[in-house]
């Protein structure tokens, strides 16, 4: 059991920012284009006590602790997998709430006990909105098949394209705008649908996503030796790789995919996440709209987000789902005729965006606006970074940003600005453009922030003709 956990941590090491522990672990990478979610049922552990008996929460909705731990710290606990496998007999994880410490105790051979006290901070739930079951395409395979396939790609290959056709499934390396075709090595690998345990293809698809992350996922899957399911749809929609054949835990990895250049209306559908196959008692505690707990970094929108949250809460479906929007699906599709327009507008502005993160979109945060980015738009950074596309739907004009303030980097700030603009229909794109250019750190003051750049713009060199 511990091994699985270890491997999982190791494999996620590359793309880490946050880890939420709740007998569920969630992480998202720094550019928010990959999201991992692992749910452990109590049966995964030899002993599980969520302290519900002792829980006294101020907020009646707030049951169960959501906290985040720096991934690096987590990895120090499981630093040496081989030594863990050799010497650790059991692992005890406790939450020391008064001191804000997540305590890992590794009981090793020879009477040695290693205790790691990791600092955690409480946070909101990181939630990706995605649907596994509604995707038309689904492949199930033993990780070995895919491992053998990806091993053919060069180690520095960043992205891979999966082409699914009824007669064959192909993997091809993705080449970003390389001016000289002669300098590029193209690798293509074909797999017969029969090689997969299960192959359901609703639509012919060609999607591109990050190979590095796939490798990490496959590495993990191979260690635990369980088949993986790939759920995907079309370019721009995320691919969900899930491991759910073990009764004791479930792992979901959501990877953003490159938007198809022809397809600009990628975020019309909203999908809901279906993760709860396990009836865990704490699940019932968590079934509330995440939205209501989600705190927007922009005070101007926080009310709206709460408002939105309440809406969805009312629509909360059966207890088997937690944090979901399934019922909102239709509502969201129909809701926003303006959405596409705005997105296209943003779209034009994006090329000038000076982002450091290649993934400027936020596929993995709850009601966030997704930004499409044409694959042929030359990014300002190196060609190895790619544009991705979003997952999340526009829930409604009022729904907003869910990620905690401290995660915001330049690009996210800018996205926030755009998000905020979207909430005010008819906001002229030029303002957004300016705000993007000037990359403000205080996205909360959306109005002010828009004004400031205007002022900045107006400060120009003094007219030399002026008398002085």
């Amino acid at each position, binding site marked *: 059991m511990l091994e699985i956990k270890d491997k999982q941590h190791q494999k996620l090491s590359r793309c880490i920012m946050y880890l939420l522990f709740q007998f569920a672990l969630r992480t998202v990478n720094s550019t928010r284009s990959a999201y991992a979610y692992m749910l452990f049922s109590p049966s995964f552990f030899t002993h599980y006590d969520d302290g519900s008996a002792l829980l006294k929460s101020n907020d009646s909705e707030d049951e169960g602790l959501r906290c985040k731990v720096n991934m690096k*710290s987590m990895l120090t606990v499981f630093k040496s997998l081989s030594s863990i496998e050799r010497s650790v007999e059991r692992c005890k994880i406790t939450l020391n709430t008064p001191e804000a410490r997540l305590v890992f105790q590794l009981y090793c051979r020879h009477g*040695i006990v290693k205790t*790691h006290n990791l600092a955690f901070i409480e946070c909101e739930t990181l939630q990706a909105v995605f649907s596994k079951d509604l995707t038309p395409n689904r492949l199930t395979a033993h990780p070995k098949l895919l491992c053998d396939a990806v091993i053919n790609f060069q180690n520095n290959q960043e992205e891979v394209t999966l082409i699914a056709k009824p007669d064959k499934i192909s993997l091809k390396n993705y080449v970003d705008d390389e001016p000289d075709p002669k300098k590029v090595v193209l690798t293509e690998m074909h797999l017969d649908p029969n090689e997969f345990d299960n192959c359901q293809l609703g639509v012919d698809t060609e999607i591109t996503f990050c190979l590095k992350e796939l490798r990490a996922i496959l590495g993990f899957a191979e260690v635990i030796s369980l088949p993986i399911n790939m759920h995907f749809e079309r370019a721009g929609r995320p691919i969900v790789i899930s491991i759910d054949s073990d009764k004791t835990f479930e792992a979901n990895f959501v990877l953003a995919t490159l938007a198809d250049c022809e397809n600009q209306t990628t975020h019309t559908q909203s999908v809901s996440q279906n993760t709860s196959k396990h009836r865990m008692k704490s699940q019932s505690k968590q079934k509330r709209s995440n939205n209501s707990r989600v705190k927007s970094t922009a005070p101007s929108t926080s009310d709206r987000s709460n408002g939105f949250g309440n809406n969805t809460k009312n629509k909360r479906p059966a207890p088997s789902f937690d944090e979901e929007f399934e019922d909102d699906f239709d509502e969201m599709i129909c809701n926003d005729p303006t959405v596409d327009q705005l997105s296209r507008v943003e779209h034009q502005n994006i090329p000038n965006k000076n982002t450091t993160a290649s993934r400027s979109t936020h596929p993995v945060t709850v009601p966030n606006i997704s930004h499409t980015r044409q694959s042929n738009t030359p990014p300002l950074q190196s060609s190895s970074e790619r544009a991705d596309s979003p997952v999340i739907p526009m829930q409604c004009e009022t729904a907003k940003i869910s990620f905690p303030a401290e995660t915001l980097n330049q690009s996210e700030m800018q996205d926030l600005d755009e998000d905020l603009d979207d909430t005010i229909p008819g906001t002229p794109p030029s303002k957004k453009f300016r705000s993007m250019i000037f990359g403000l750190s205080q996205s909360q003051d959306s109005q002010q922030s828009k004004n400031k750049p205007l002022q900045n713009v107006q400060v120009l060199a003094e007219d030399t003709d002026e008398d002085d």
Partner: protein
Amino acid sequence: MSLSTQQADNDSQYLMVAKLDNARHVSTILKAIHFKDTATIFASPMGLKVTTEDAKCVQANAFIQEAIFHEFTIKEEQIIFKINLTVLLECLTIFGNSSVPGVTASLKMCYAGYGQPLLLILEEDSVVTDCSIKTLEPDEVLDFDFCSTNVINKIIMKSECLKEVFSELDMTSEILQILMSPDAPYFQLSTFGNSGSTQSDFSKESDMVESFQCTKTQTNRYKISLLKPTVKALGLSTRISIRTDNRGFLSLQYMIKNEDNQVCFVEFYCAPDEELDDEPGH
């Protein structure tokens, strides 16, 4: 043979001549204390003692007894000189580091006296290498004044379990805290790093512990950067003795077995980090 008498005549000019079948016996031990470029060598009829120091806080001593050498002659009671340890090690391992069984480089070390270089002659498979390393004026070495009568706590254990712990020490922590106590948790190593604190507890009942003599509960902190070099020695050793005295000074003694099952000792002394504690001066 005339050659050997010639050699013997040549050797008579040296204050110290040491011959060894396998240079690795010496190079391995010296690597264990190689955290500084220069080392002071003390040669006496008992053998060689090589000392390295850092920051006036930590000192490592490697003892290569006279019995390790198959020939060891010395004309004076004590010979002291300083030498560049990095260069010395490079010369000793000039035939490479790989330990192919059966193939060894034999070593002959000669020292003619004050101001003279240390001569090394290494031979492997009839390839001979001559090295001449300049010697330096020896500095004063610290005397930690660590005598066994002042030892408060002493633990002798097998190195195995500590190897892992030491190699995985959280380097973001500035200090390593060592707690030794007759009561639980008996022996505890703690670090306080960026991610949080980590403790490793070793029970005195553990089968790794060979001897446990702790009289008083003591918690001492040492700069982790000073103790990191001990990891190498720990890796080579089979047993370790950990002692702290009344001043909080730490003595780590490692028993290292070489390829011929001969035993050598390496010891480290480290002064405690006195930042917060008000320890009485010594």
